[in-house]
């Protein structure tokens, strides 16, 4: 739970503030390679829903330059994933080269509304087609990317499995109670005497999974507890509540500390701009570039919000 108390005072101040557009100092910097790669493990029924390892390679675009998906993807890189004994080379796919059936399937993975995709849209990713490399709990996975004589590397470890234990819905607190919205609550059974990190995303009525403004949590305050917490709808207009009758799917991931730091710093920057907030630099586990190579064990909680 995060309380933006400074924001509350900020509201009072901004009542008299005014603003204008500004051309800030140009920061010239070499374009950096941005890695977004995942390798997942799943237990039991969730094993079937594990996404094969994939990596998206892009370039950071200087702030003052135009940002379009046409100029950011890094193509033709040599991307391999190794578990120490076996290694696989990932195969590159670009959206614009796919047939329409594959496009529709891929749109789901990337959270894109297929029907509104413009003709000039493009996304490229590197995928394990061999299906040899499947994430396993407790194992480490090395990522190596070679492009134009440069090497980018990373390693990630898939942590222990701590799924959502159970969940239920209650009437939302406050006076704004209409019968259409409910608050979701869930329990987890944290493992004691070790740092555990969690991340969740929610998909509603078959829409892509969405992470909220704060998607990662740690057990530092609740170590080893059987812990009750609120699970929030990540649609901004929902105020965290879910609509009765909706079909929900919560994608719950156990991640390692490096991923926690990555998401935490990334989300901090996204959420904190203003007079009293500071900047932070995104903490990355990528050597020679930036971004994330994240191993996780995923579990899904599928449920329908009761109509009454």
């Amino acid at each position: 739970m995060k309380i933006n108390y400074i924001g509350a005072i900020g509201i009072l101040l901004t009542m008299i503030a005014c603003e204008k557009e500004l051309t800030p100092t140009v920061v010239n910097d070499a374009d950096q390679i941005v890695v977004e790669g995942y390798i997942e493990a799943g237990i039991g029924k969730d094993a079937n829903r594990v996404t094969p390892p994939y990596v998206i390679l892009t370039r950071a675009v200087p702030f003052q330059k135009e940002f379009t998906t046409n100029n950011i993807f890094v193509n033709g890189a040599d991307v391999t994933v190794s578990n120490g004994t076996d290694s696989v080379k990932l195969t590159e796919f670009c959206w614009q080269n796919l047939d329409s059936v594959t496009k529709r399937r891929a749109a789901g993975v990337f959270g894109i509304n297929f029907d509104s995709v413009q003709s000039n849209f493009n996304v490229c990713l590197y995928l394990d087609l061999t299906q040899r490399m499947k994430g396993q709990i407790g194992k480490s996975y090395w990522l190596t990317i070679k492009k134009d004589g440069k090497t980018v590397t990373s390693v990630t470890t898939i942590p222990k499995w701590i799924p959502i234990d159970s969940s239920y819905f209650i009437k939302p607190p406050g006076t704004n109670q209409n019968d259409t919205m409910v608050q979701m609550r869930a329990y987890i059974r944290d493992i004691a005497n070790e740092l555990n990190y969690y991340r969740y995303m929610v998909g509603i009525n078959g829409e892509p999974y969405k992470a909220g403004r704060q998607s990662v949590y740690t057990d530092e305050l609740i170590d080893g507890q059987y812990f009750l917490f609120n699970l929030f709808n990540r649609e901004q207009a929902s105020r965290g509540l879910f609509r009765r009758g909706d079909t929900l799917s919560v994608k719950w991931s156990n991640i390692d500390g490096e991923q926690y730091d990555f998401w935490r710093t990334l989300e901090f920057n996204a959420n904190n701009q203003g007079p009293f907030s500071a900047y932070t630099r995104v903490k990355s586990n990528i050597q020679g570039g930036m971004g994330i190579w994240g191993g996780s064990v995923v579990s899904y909680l599928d449920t329908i919000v009761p109509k009454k």
Partner: protein
Amino acid sequence: MHSTKSNFSILLLWLFCVTLSLAQEYTLSGYVKDANTGETLIGTNIYTQINRSQGTVSNNYGFYSLTLPKGKYTIVWSSVGYKNIEQEIVLDVDKTLNVDLSEGVVMKEVVVTAKPKDDHVQSTEMGTVTLPIESIKKMPALMGEADILKALQLLPGVMAAGEGSSGFYVRGGGPDQNLVLLDEAPVYNPGHMLGFFSVFNADAVKNTTLIKGGMPANYGGRLSSVVDIQMKEGNNKSYGAEGGIGLIASRFTAEGPIQKNKSSFIVSARRTYLLDLVQPAIDKTKFAGTNYYFYDLNTKVNYTFSDKDRLYLSGYFGRDILVFNSKENAFKINIPYGNATATLRWNHVFNQKLFMNVTGVYNNYDFTVQGGQETFQLKVASGVRDWNGKVDFEYFPNYKHNIKMGVNYIRHRMSPNIATFSNGEGTFTNNLKPKYAHETAIYINDDHKITNDLSLSYGLRGSWFAQIGPYVSLKTGKTYADGEIVKSYPRLDPRLTGKYSLTDASSVKFGVTLTHQFVHLVSNSTSTLPTDVWVPSSEIVKPQRGVQYALGYFRNFEDNMYETSVEIYYKDLWNQIDYPENYVQSPSVEVETEFVYGKGRAYGAEFFLKKAKGRLNGWIGYTIARSERIFPTINQGAVYPAVYDRTHDIVLVANYRLSKKWDFNTNFVYATGNNYTPLRSLFLINQQLNIEYGARNSARYNSYHRLDAGFTYARNPDSKKKFTSTWSFGVYNAYNHFNPFFIYYNVKADVNTSAAKATAFQVTLFPVIPSVTWNFKWQQKPKQQE
């Protein structure tokens, strides 16, 4: 430590031997007071008419002692805003003379800010400024609230921490490096409302002194500056009340004798009501119950037992209260925070040459955030609590020496962000514990007039700081018992300033001061916030260290009508503290485990021209400066400008007396923009655009400039009535310049159209803001002296 101790003893011995060699001297001593109110007068110059350097200055309690060779003298008592008293004294025995100075009718009309005579040039102090409270009250202020700390920002070398902020940076140092004292009690958070207003109610304040360089040995524990504020004692002759009604706050002060000429009291209160006024409107919204206000309460009583003994008890209590309430989703948050200080002092005059002050201070600052939604509740609390004891001696062996010595002990309890969280089924805590420390100091300082032209002020301050238990080591896991020493830091600070008079109206001054700082407040934002926590030096955090070299040329013109000075300084700073580049606050982590350490330096030149007298008076200051830091883990180890770095800073302060009834006041400020860390690039993760920042503090806001102006109107300035009132009309940012407050970036991305655009916006907080304040004063007519 052994050699340190013996050096110290030798110094002490030497200082006392100096006094033994002189013979046939007699002492004139006593208190200097205001004739009308009985308030003691600080900083009164007492000297012989024939030789200005045969003189002394009344101390913080109005006591003076002047020892001269046997003879006949005309002694002058001279204090800011008062008529001089000159009296012929035949000094053939020790004499006690308490002097009451009357407010100078002539002086008051023309000058309030003038220092008597050529004090500016002839004192050994450098980088020291006393601002009379009356001139602070006249300055046009944001929303009409006279503000001591903002007035200090108008001096060269002192920069505002940000738009409208009472936080300040002195000569390139951080805000935690300023020691702010209210009646000897350190004030840990001198700001209300996120620092937009300082906690000092001008009606309760008597005197404010800023030391930005050449800190004498009786002060310590901070690197950059000392702001020493004394509260009024209260009129011990007649009852009075004063107050004001402004746009956002009102003030009320009452004072008077408890026992005439022996004891008095003062009570002063201030409270804001901006949101109180709109409560009825808020009540109709979904945020009913939301409110914000702050208040201050200053009280002081004193009792004079005899000419030798006097007791003072003073207290300050101030709080900010923010309540945010959203009925709609049952979300409520409560943020109370504030300072409470209590100071008990006993002045004792052992003999005409030896004055003692014993001080006990209790000091508390706490900050709490408490809130949540029904059964889900979070509470985060932090704070500082000190018990502080001091014994200070002032010894005046003869007019050539003013020796100060003393000891100080502070027991600190500093609480980190202690968080508890409950979800209706259980309560969870981060298990952080308060930290405890001893801070002790012993000092000696001699203000020594070596010849008529050369004076030196030299001193030594020895400190010993120790982190103590109960504590569990973060390094080794060892458990320390209550009071057991975890880590101690003995430190020695030599201090030296000097003055050499070139002519009657000009002098050269210099200073070398070494200082250590044992408690730290590190902010991850551009200004300090009440959420920032103080941490003591510990097994992890080393004391900060700074050395300052300063050189100045001081010259007065036209019979002290104009005072000018040029001061240059260079500071080296060690063990400076900051947060790492990818720091994000976490409720479960001790902040000091996140700290990174580096070095710093600051240098600059300050130019000052002051017109001290006349219908038009005021000053112009210009500062050119630089403040830099080097941290191995920040900016890849390269030098970067500190947040406190401002290249140029120009200040103009003017007061013009239009007529007896009308006063015109104006301030103009120009400063190089604050630096900030700019956005470097955009990148795609999780189908969203994210932002990455460039090198720390590598960009600057547009420059800051602002003109404030105000009129004060007294309907009946010569009224002999008990009740008088004045109006103040002011305008802040008169020409409505859109000064930068902060910059934010709006990144709009549409993956579907595969394009994104980022735009930067500069936000201005305060446009032109007019204000009006009505001030009143009621004074019981003093009865004729029998």
